[in-house]
């Protein structure tokens, strides 16, 4: 039987097509590698630049004046810690409550509006949040840790709300029904059966939100402002790590720039530990 079929690549067009396909796959591989490069570059650079300055003084001393060497960022670390903690006190309960509402009671058109508003709040530029808190608090009470923490909480709120919602939605419905069928009121079903069942995942979501706000600079610039010293109270201008890095970076003094890198390393380590940790947790849970 004589065959007319040719199943090999012989024609010019086919050869061209095959080559083009392989070429473009090569380009796509290159683009993927290119996109991975900045992360490796940035993290390696921050580590190598910052690691040498992470000494005891960095964590325990106040910054020295411009031109002097030595000193640390103790005030900024304490300030950031305080404000993030305060932000959690407001942002986590509120965000979780909203998230539970969206997941457990959120159906129909109004829920869609709520969800949309939450998403929009996530995408409000953080500097605009700063202006809002300036008008709401700073005008009346001055720059303070309170104002800074509230600004951070506004940023944290929608993140926590949406992650809580997504996590609770993963729980199959029959578990809710089983609880309700036992005659347990709905609010107890939610708080004593649903929430404890996924507390690990909820914590994961909250941790990621904390990692996000801990690095925020813009909303603190004109709410907490910054401080060369330790703040005496929560209603005083307060230093924070990101703002201090910013101020040191643009100071033009090499020793302050050196400390800015060390501060950046602290931030990056904090964020990475949380991200790696949560991923490891999720991976561990899956397997």
């Amino acid at each position: 039987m004589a065959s007319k079929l040719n199943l090999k690549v012989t024609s010019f067009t086919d050869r061209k097509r095959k080559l083009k396909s392989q070429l473009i796959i090569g380009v796509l591989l290159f683009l993927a590698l290119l996109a991975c490069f900045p992360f490796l570059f940035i993290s390696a650079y921050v580590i190598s630049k910052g690691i040498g300055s992470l000494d005891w003084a960095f964590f325990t001393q106040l910054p020295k004046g411009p031109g002097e060497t030595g000193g640390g960022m103790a005030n900024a670390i304490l300030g950031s810690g305080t404000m993030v903690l305060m932000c959690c006190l407001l942002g986590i309960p509120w965000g979780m409550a909203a998230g539970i509402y969206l997941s457990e009671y959120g159906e129909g058109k109004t829920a869609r509006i709520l969800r949309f508003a939450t998403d929009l709040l996530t995408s409000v530029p953080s500097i605009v949040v700063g202006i809002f808190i300036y008008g709401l608090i700073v005008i009346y009470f001055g720059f303070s840790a309170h104002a800074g923490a509230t600004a951070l909480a506004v940023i944290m709120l929608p993140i926590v709300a949406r992650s809580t919602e997504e996590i609770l939605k993963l729980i199959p419905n029959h578990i809710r029904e089983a609880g309700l069928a036992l005659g347990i009121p709905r609010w107890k079903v939610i708080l004593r059966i649903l929430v404890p069942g996924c507390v690990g995942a909820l914590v994961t979501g909250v941790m990621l939100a904390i990692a996000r706000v801990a690095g925020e600079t813009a909303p603190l610039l004109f709410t907490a402002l910054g401080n060369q010293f330790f703040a005496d109270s929560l209603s005083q201008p307060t230093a924070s790590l990101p703002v201090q890095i910013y101020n040191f970076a643009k100071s033009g003094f090499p020793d302050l720039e050196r400390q800015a890198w060390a501060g950046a390393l602290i931030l990056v380590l904090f964020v990475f530990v949380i991200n790696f940790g949560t991923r490891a947790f999720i991976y561990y849970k899956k397997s």
Partner: protein
Amino acid sequence: MVTELVEKLFFTREISEEISLPLKKRDVHFGDKVFYYLLKGASWGIVFLLLAMVGLILKMSWPAFSTLGWTFFTSAEWNSWTQEFGVLSFIYGTVISSLLAVAFAVPVSVGVALFLNELAPSWLARPLGFLIEMLAAIPSIVYGLWGLFVLAPLLRTYVQPVLLDYFGWFPLFQGPPLGVGMLCAGVLLAIMITPTISAMTREVFKAIPVSHREAALGLGATRWEMLKLAVLKTGTSGIIGAVILGLGRALGETMAVTMVIGNKSEIHLSLFESGQTMASILANQYAEADSDLQLAALTAVGLTLFMVSLIINSIARFIVWKVEKGFKGGK
């Protein structure tokens, strides 16, 4: 005291007690109701917060609009000595730096999404995807620091001289190669929005049914032709949504841009020149405004930025929502 109360409220009453006392219905309903309204309040509180934000910022910026009128939008002059305030140069800076970022980031992000979703085996896709996702976790101040001390010098010594040599006749590439400026901001923003766009695009690609890909292959398409036909063409509107979302993120980005854009409130065609965005002028001047009018004008800049990003993000979310619905409802 409080913990005791909480414990009493939540944990002390036994379930069996409730079952044995079905007549105390009102009590059960009461707890449910309080809980429900608490949650509802929290959720509507977010809407209220958003509205309050718009209202308060509008009120704070009102003096600027009433004093400056339309010149606020038509003037590019920003001078606290002469009390002239116009937003135009910041809008220009914001738009150009963001568009530049999108232009750099889109081909890379879509390429990444194609490669990781459609071509790479999972042992390769997972670590690469992780490295790209982690870009989104780096705080923007760290990007700024890196941009100022690493990226800008790199551009100054290696990229800008080459561009000057070959494209110096082109108005986009003229002037002294300083490193910092519009180009640097664009590149840095591109790195920052790549994870956003690629993650969104990957979601869109994941939603496309496998059968489209098989149909293309079954017709004798090469791998690239299959990607073009079944993935890119099918996912076009989703990709557009992802790109707009990335654009929204670039528009509002503050710290990184402030640190590398040069901070000059002027309009220049050349990408080597310094500029100023709506976000960067706020970061630079808000805490130390000299006059009430300047503060109001700055707030008005914030309002403009706020509105632009609300509109852009609404459009993006609408598109993404429609696309996801389309795939779920359709095939």
